[in-house]
């Protein structure tokens, strides 16, 4: 147990440490009049939307929840690689926030958070501000474009797409694949871990190869991996490449993309210059900018350290962080974000009542990967809180599929339906 009951009460009463945020002026007026206890959640992705719904449901609608999200619609990253392969359209992965509002009474504000004042407990948007009792930061990831020479957000949008946030770029990348000549090269650049969705890039290679096999059989997928080896489900991905797409997928370890030449469509690694017809460079990632606005990013300048009983930040006492933004030996996945969100939701409700949160969390992650239009493989683990290490540790017995199968392909699709309904339904 990390905190005893007395410390815990002391913490709640003492409130937050005064941070170094002198420059922030509280702009505009309070957007929604605050009556009772209010939780503000920034980011309506897998983590934030789940926390919003569960805080409402588990508090029997007693806690006010305001969810701030920049996008009008929710678009699922999970399964978005199948848009490249052709078995789905982006619309199949797009959902509205209506149920969260109507069924669960979540107050949704579409807008961009521009600043956070942890001392005054206020979140700033361009149109005004919101005060909170507790804040949940769930911004997902931002890209570190400055780590790759010649690449920036504009070039990523126009020419060298990462498509690592599902949406417009996913569709553009599919169009580039369609426009590619037979015999062309589609290069995928993978950053060093930790990054969002460890098996995702290798699943993408399968989906691109699947498209090529049907439409452009002389083409090639070239994987430039900054990591020394395939980071997830190695045997299963290699079997899929060798057996389903023989000769089509080339894998290069220790091949970090250091710079790009967007004009010539060249990716440069330490060892050589790679010319490709489509460049899909996934830059290194860090916690979304909201985390630095809240001052909760750790010494590494990238991720946020939290207490795994409550997901409260190690820096600011009443700010919680969930999802990809968290620093942990946990995979950055949609399922993991929802699992964390529920533990955080339960803890936030208890803490608002001055009670002690549950002390023995166990959470699950599963990632299915579609290796063709029909077949999938999985990795699944239970993670439990370890008191000595003060962190989440993988329990024995987790692991990956014995082999790829259409049965698991069906389960993967069922998983998507149920998780999206659990998050937004």
């Amino acid at each position: 147990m990390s905190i005893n009951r007395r410390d815990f009460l002391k913490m709640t009463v003492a409130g937050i440490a005064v941070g170094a945020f002198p420059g922030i002026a509280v702009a505009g007026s309070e957007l929604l009049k605050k009556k009772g206890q209010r939780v503000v959640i920034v980011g309506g992705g897998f983590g934030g939307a789940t926390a919003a719904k569960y805080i409402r449901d588990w508090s029997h609608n007693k806690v006010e929840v305001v969810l701030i999200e920049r996008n009008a619609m929710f678009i699922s990253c999970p399964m978005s690689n199948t848009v490249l392969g052709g078995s789905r359209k982006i619309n199949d992965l797009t959902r509205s926030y209506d149920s969260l509002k109507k069924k669960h009474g979540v107050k949704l504000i579409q807008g961009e958070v521009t600043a956070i004042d942890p001392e005054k407990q206020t979140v700033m948007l361009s149109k005004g501000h919101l005060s909170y009792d507790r804040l949940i930061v769930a911004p997902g990831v931002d890209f570190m474009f400055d780590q790759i020479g010649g690449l920036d957000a504009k070039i990523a949008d126009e020419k060298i797409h990462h498509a690592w946030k599902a949406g417009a770029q996913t569709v553009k990348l599919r169009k580039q694949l369609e426009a590619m000549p037979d015999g062309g090269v589609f290069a995928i650049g993978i950053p060093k871990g930790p990054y969002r969705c460890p098996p995702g890039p290798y699943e993408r290679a399968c989906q691109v190869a699947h498209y090529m096999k049907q439409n452009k059989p002389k083409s090639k997928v070239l994987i430039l991996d900054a990591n020394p080896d395939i980071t997830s489900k190695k045997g299963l991905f290699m079997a899929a490449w060798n057996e389903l797409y023989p000769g089509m997928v080339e894998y290069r370890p220790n091949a970090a993309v250091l710079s790009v030449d967007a004009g010539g469509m060249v990716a440069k690694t330490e060892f050589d210059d790679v010319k490709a017809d489509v460049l899909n460079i996934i830059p290194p990632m860090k916690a979304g900018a909201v985390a630095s606005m809240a001052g909760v990013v750790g010494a590494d300048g990238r991720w946020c350290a939290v207490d795994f009983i409550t997901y409260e930040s190690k820096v600011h006492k009443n700010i919680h962080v969930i999802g990809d933004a968290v620093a942990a030996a946990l995979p950055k996945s949609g399922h993991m974000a929802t699992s964390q969100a529920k533990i955080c939701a339960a803890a936030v409700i208890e803490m608002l009542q001055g009670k002690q949160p549950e002390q023995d969390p166990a959470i699950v992650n599963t990632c299915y990967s579609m290796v063709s239009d029909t077949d999938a493989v999985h990795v699944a683990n239970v993670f439990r809180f370890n008191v000595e290490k003060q962190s989440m540790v993988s329990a024995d017995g987790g692991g990956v599929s014995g082999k790829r199968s259409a049965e698991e392909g069906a389960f993967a699709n069922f998983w998507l339906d149920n998780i999206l309904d659990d998050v937004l339904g």
Partner: protein
Amino acid sequence: MIKKYLLIITCALGLALPAIHAQAEVDKHARNLAGSCAACHGTNGHSKSGMPTLAGLDRTYFVTALKEFKSGARPATVMQHHAKGYTDAEFELLADFFASQKVGKKH
């Protein structure tokens, strides 16, 4: 256990308390553990897809299933990896939680 009998008695007497009662009854540890199953099996075990529904499963059937996934006696694609991460006592807690979910009701 005592709470459970009380609930049965209250229900048997037909007292109109179950809604409030059900809220007070929820074991939060079980509820939180069960939260991680929802990605596949649906919110509170109410599956909206081809995944098996857990809501309303008989508790003995449920515990047996998880024990057999753990031992390997029941073949599975993915459940062996989950079952091995929990204790038998947690199987019982989860069984109680899912058995008490009303079938045909969403939450």
